[in-house]
């Protein structure tokens, strides 16, 4: 029995999770209005069209806001402080994630810093996180 916080993909969200396994940030885009959106859903939240597709996003993003959790979930495999962040994708959507592969300090985590998508293991899954964009670490 996996931990209840280990994500359980659904048929509607599976392409996103397949993307994680391939090292690609795959999110939805509406063919009718062009809106890119997240989380995955079979309907465009902007125009209500169901003519939507998954596409490989750039993975480029910026750090909108964050906290540094002092006691992270044990499943992450470390008890040192860990960021929880609001990430703004270059394509527009905002999502929750963590910034990894850098010091988890206010000094290292500057608002608006450029980030790029990265993928890491979490229990038996590969999940989306972000890291400082190259040349910015």
């Amino acid at each position, binding site marked *: 029995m996996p931990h*209840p*916080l*280990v*994500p*359980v*993909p*659904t048929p509607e*969200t599976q392409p996103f999770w397949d993307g994680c396994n391939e090292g690609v940030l795959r999110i939805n885009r509406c063919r009718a209005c062009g809106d890119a959106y*997240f*989380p995955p859903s079979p309907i465009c939240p902007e125009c209500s069209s169901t003519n939507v597709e998954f596409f490989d996003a750039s993975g480029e993003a910026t750090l*909108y*806001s*964050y*906290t*540094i*959790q*002092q*006691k*992270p*979930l044990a*499943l992450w495999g470390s008890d040192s*402080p860990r960021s*929880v*962040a*609001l990430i703004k994708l270059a394509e527009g959507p*905002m*999502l*929750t*994630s*963590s910034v990894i592969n850098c010091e988890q300090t*206010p000094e290292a985590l500057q*608002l608006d810093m450029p980030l790029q998508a990265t993928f890491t293991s*979490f229990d038996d899954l590969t*999940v989306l996180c972000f890291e400082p964009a190259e040349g910015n670490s």
Partner: protein
Amino acid sequence: MIPPGATAIVGAAESTEIGKVPDMSSVGLAIDAAANAMQDAGITAADIDGFTCGYFPVADMSRQLGIFPSWADNTVVGGCSWMFQLRNAIAAIHAGYCNTVLIVYGESGRSTRRLGQSGDAGQKGGTGQQFDMFYSGGQAAATFTLPVLRYQHEYGLSDEELAVGAVSQREWAVDVPRATLREPTSVEEVLDSPMVAWPIRRAMCCLVSDAGGAIIVTSADRARDYPKPPVYVLGTGGALEAGVMSPAGVREPLRPEFIRTSGEAAFSAAGVSHSDIDHLMIYDAFIHTPIFGLEGLGFVDYGEAGHFIAEGHTAPGGKLPMNTSGGGLSYAHTGAYGMLCMLESIRQVRGEAANQVADVDIALCHGWGGYWSACSTLIFGTDAP
């Protein structure tokens, strides 16, 4: 539109004990509060024909209480569910579906880990479970608070200024015998409390308590026959936004539209303006939520509320008394605080609060649910216009 004052609260009570109640499950707290509310109203189950609860199967709880309702609702949108249910109840009464509704809440958030309670925001395969909660382990202090740093950055609010909110609410709680934390505190003490999720310290987070609460609402013409002075429902609002558990789903995180939508609906229905509000409750799960509430509801402009609180305007003696029980930070917070938030508004309008504000004719209560998934705004008054 339902005319302001068409319905009124005629019974209102908390569970006999709150805070730490080790010998009661969520069910026991709810039933205790329901019994107290019926006693407060001077009625029995036979006088009630509408029922809502939220955290329990609605038919199970109504049957246990001996209520056979002709109208029921079990809307669950997180902590403000019981405020949404009140809004639905007054519509049902106005529509003639029922006459008198009991709204029941109980949550053993501290002692029994919510024994006997249903309602799970993180169900397998749900959006929150797949895309949000695992990053933080579902820790509210690390996710609900995500906009705080951005707010501080955009509007120049220091940690010291942010901390004043917790100090002001403690100043209210000092005079409230049922409050959990009653020792005066200071900005230094708040900032020295253990770091939970930088920049959030423990003293910026709500308590974890056991409590129940219940209210009874009926039509204004019936309300006059009850023993306590009616607390009229003047206007209500409600709105949904974020969807998943974190604020990532809020379209403009520093200007959440759903707060404005809910507030404008309540002010418009009540036919009152901000300057008419004598007393204010804004659900404080964490220190920042009153800031966003004050701005979203329009009491101050965007970017001003942090400094407004830091200047003491919501503290005892301030021009806008807010969270006068001590709030979720000092009074009690079970997990879902909306019922307790409403009950303090009702006590203030009745004139029976522990820390009674002088001359409360009109009070506004604003609550949240599922972090920023939902909010509700209620305006109560001593008189029907």
